[in-house]
């Protein structure tokens, strides 16, 4: 391992669009050989996209990538690998039913006249492992390994292929602190051998601890690239969020004395949620902020009966409810809009009417289970109108609608049931500006009408604009609570684990 492995990478004026929105716009970054270069930013800032462009997973629409001062254009991760660039994705990709050794040498097996030289492969593996100081059983099936060990497999695979640049996308998001420490040691070893690491992460303490250089991205733009030594966690957060983006602000009632509708006590799920206590009053919007992976969605799913819990009580209107399935939660008066409307929400090939009434078809049927289509159409029509869904045609298929209108159809399904508690996970994801504003007004109006709302969003502006109280989650626990309109920096710092950890 020597200095010949140095490979500088230059990204010049990179631009990338996804269906109209700019994920990256005119981003130029220079990565020095033999360094750890971190990319940080909020969710959707473009840091993963940039990492994937270096790794050949995504092709940029504009700009030029230079490797060793040579302009390159990768059509696939395979081509990037030939240039010595390996990508370790967030979703690890080793072949699960093959052994560690087979995975490490997949596609580059030592062979003679077409036959894999197993003993040779074993020897190479042992050399590799001792050289890098890893501890990993070569015969274990990769599918049985923990995430941390799967990462080791991927790293070994990268160095076995002769990678000089390794791109890591959120490598520690599902690791324990001990595992993170081990990974960082490996990364330092890799750097010492002259390899270059591009490290995409939203854990700022790790970034400052590990990286030589940090590039900060915000909404697809590069804010700055600076030596890590000159940054602090506060300066990075300030760079990532800058001036607050536009989001409508609603009037928030102070000191509500309305009765508590939803009360969650001592909720636990091993490895996911820890000691969750929360209350939501009638007419109150409680915002749940936190990073991706902090347990926000998991909490929502647990309350809504979508995922099992290990311990805890959930009470609605003061009555403890036994919630073991979504049906139980619905019977208790809850409604849950899941994070992904496509995977968990909508029936794409069914009509707007069928989608709207699905959670309570009985309401538009006779006692004997016969559908009353006329009644269904009528009820759907009035909901479509009140939500201004386009086109307001009950017989149209959901798949033919725009993202914003699809999301409104999902709202329609739950409004159809008049829930007491509305749990919203990313209610405006992938929705255009107009629909987003309409959904915000709708949420606010529902609360005014007395519905208790739990609002989860990766967009901090959305939470601040709507929530009467803001809870911050980090690593499975609620770590901070704010009243209405807290300063955004304070919420962000809490989400990143800075500042005090007690309730204000």
């Amino acid at each position, binding site marked *: 391992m020597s200095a010949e492995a140095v490979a500088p990478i230059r990204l010049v004026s990179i631009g990338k669009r996804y269906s109209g929105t700019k994920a990256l716009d005119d981003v130029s970054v220079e990565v020095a050989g033999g360094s750890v270069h971190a990319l940080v930013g909020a969710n959707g800032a473009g840091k993963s996209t940039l990492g994937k462009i270096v790794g050949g997973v995504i092709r940029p629409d504009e700009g030029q990538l230079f490797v060793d001062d040579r302009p390159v254009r990768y059509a696939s991760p395979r081509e990037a690998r030939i240039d010595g660039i390996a990508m370790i994705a967030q979703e690890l990709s080793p072949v699960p039913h093959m052994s560690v050794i087979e995975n490490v040498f997949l596609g580059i097996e030592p062979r003679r006249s077409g036959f894999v030289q197993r003993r040779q492969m074993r020897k190479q593996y042992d050399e590799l492992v001792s050289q890098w100081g890893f501890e990993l059983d070569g015969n274990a099936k990769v599918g049985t390994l923990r995430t941390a060990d799967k990462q080791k497999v991927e790293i070994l695979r990268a160095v076995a292929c002769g990678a000089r640049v390794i791109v890591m996308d959120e490598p520690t998001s599902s690791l324990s602190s001990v595992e993170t420490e081990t990974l960082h040691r490996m990364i330092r070893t890799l750097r010492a051998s002259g390899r270059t690491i591009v490290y995409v992460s939203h854990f700022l303490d790790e970034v400052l601890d590990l990286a030589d250089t940090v590039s900060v991205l915000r909404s697809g733009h590069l804010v700055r690239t600076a030596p890590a030594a000159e940054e602090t966690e506060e300066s990075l957060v300030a760079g990532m969020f800058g001036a607050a983006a536009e989001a409508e602000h609603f009037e928030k009632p102070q000191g509500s004395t309305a009765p508590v509708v939803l009360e969650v006590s001592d909720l636990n799920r091993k490895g996911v949620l820890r000691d969750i206590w929360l209350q939501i009053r009638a007419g109150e919007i409680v915002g749940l902020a936190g990073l991706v992976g902090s347990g926000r969605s998991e909490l929502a799913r647990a309350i809504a009966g979508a995922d099992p819990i290990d311990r805890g009580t959930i009470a609605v209107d003061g009555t403890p409810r036994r919630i073991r399935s979504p049906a139980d939660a619905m019977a208790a008066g809850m409604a849950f809009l899941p994070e992904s409307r496509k995977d968990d929400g909508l*029936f794409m090939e069914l009509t707007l009417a069928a989608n709207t009434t699905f959670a309570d078809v009985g309401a538009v049927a006779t006692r004997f289970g016969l559908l009353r289509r006329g009644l269904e159409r009528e009820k759907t029509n009035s909901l479509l109108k009140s939500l201004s869904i386009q086109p307001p045609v009950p017989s149209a298929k959901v798949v033919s609608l725009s993202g914003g209108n699809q999301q409104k159809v999902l709202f329609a399904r739950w409004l159809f049931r008049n829930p007491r508690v509305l749990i919203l996970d990313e209610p405006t994801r992938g929705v255009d500006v107009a629909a987003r504003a309409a959904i915000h007004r709708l949420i606010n109006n529902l609360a005014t009408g007395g519905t208790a709302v739990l609002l989860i969003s990766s967009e901090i502006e959305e939470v601040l604009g709507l929530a009467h109280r803001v809870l911050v989650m980090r690593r499975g626990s609620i770590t901070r609570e704010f009243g209405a309109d807290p300063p955004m920096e304070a919420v962000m710092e809490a989400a990143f684990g800075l500042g005090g950890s007690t309730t204000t």
Partner: protein
Amino acid sequence: MTVQPSDPVAGDPVVAEDPVAAEGRVSAGAIALRRIRSPGRIRAEHVRDYGIVVFAVALFAYFSIASNVFLTSQNLLNLVFQNATIGIAACAVTFTIIAGNFDLSLGSIFVLSEVLAAYAAVHYGVWWAFPVAIVPGAAMGAINGLLVTKLRVNAFLATLATALSFVGIAVGVTSGGLLITPSSSVFTFLGQHRVVGIQYPVIIFAVVAIVLQLVLAYTVFGRHLYGIGDNRNAARLSGLKVDRTVLITFVITGAACGLSGLIDASTTGSGTSDTSGLGGSLALLAIAGVALGGSSIFGGVGSVWRTVLGVLILGMITNGFDLLAVPDFWQDIVRGILIITAVAIGTIIERRT
């Protein structure tokens, strides 16, 4: 459950705010409406959704012209009669398939039910044949359903495995041979008699098809099947007992195959465990009929009338080719090509839109 849909946004300032904006929204809706209905031109989706109907009509017209026997009431009744057992099983398995599952054990349930019906008729009296065919059929369906929902065995494998076992039991019951039923008219009227000139199996097929189509299109249960097949997660999160609904589809399919087995036993006056006949090919022909009709093999899309159409097209090819004295092997070749073509057209259009 009271519904006040206008409530949430009633106070929404934008809706009431600006008459011009409201106007704009209405006309945008009208445009979208027109785009969706688009009555004038024939588009790719129309070919996918209704091409098979056009094909069936064309095939019918062709055989009517090419053969002077085809278009006689006697021949057409025979055509339906010969496909009634397949048709009943196919209509029922449409439920299972729409809910996103699969059943390869149709033929085996058919065979075992037929044998049990004959056995009951021989040993306990002919009236016993009726419940003894249908109830165990439903029970066999329930076994499939429990394997799929409780043990989470892949439906393909589960029903392939039970299919083997069911036929095994049938061979055991008959000792590999044939059970001749008493030639009581009580037992044989189902398969061998007519009412107003129409064979009973034809009538039963029609009734089963109509009832299942109505259940699918006009009941809460039918709606749930589409939802589960389209998006299982969403169905669960909407409070549906997904497993129970899926189980019921298997039970219905099993009972229908039992009914088919009973009809076959009654028609032939015997029960056989031999799978070289209809029992061996029933599952594939029925599923081919479902696919040919245009129901999605992945669930969520389809209907019973499509299955009836698919089964009758396959039957029409056999019947028409027989009348035109085309060699048997051509029938199979053409039917195979037809199924591939129909499914491929569907997939290609799906991918393009």
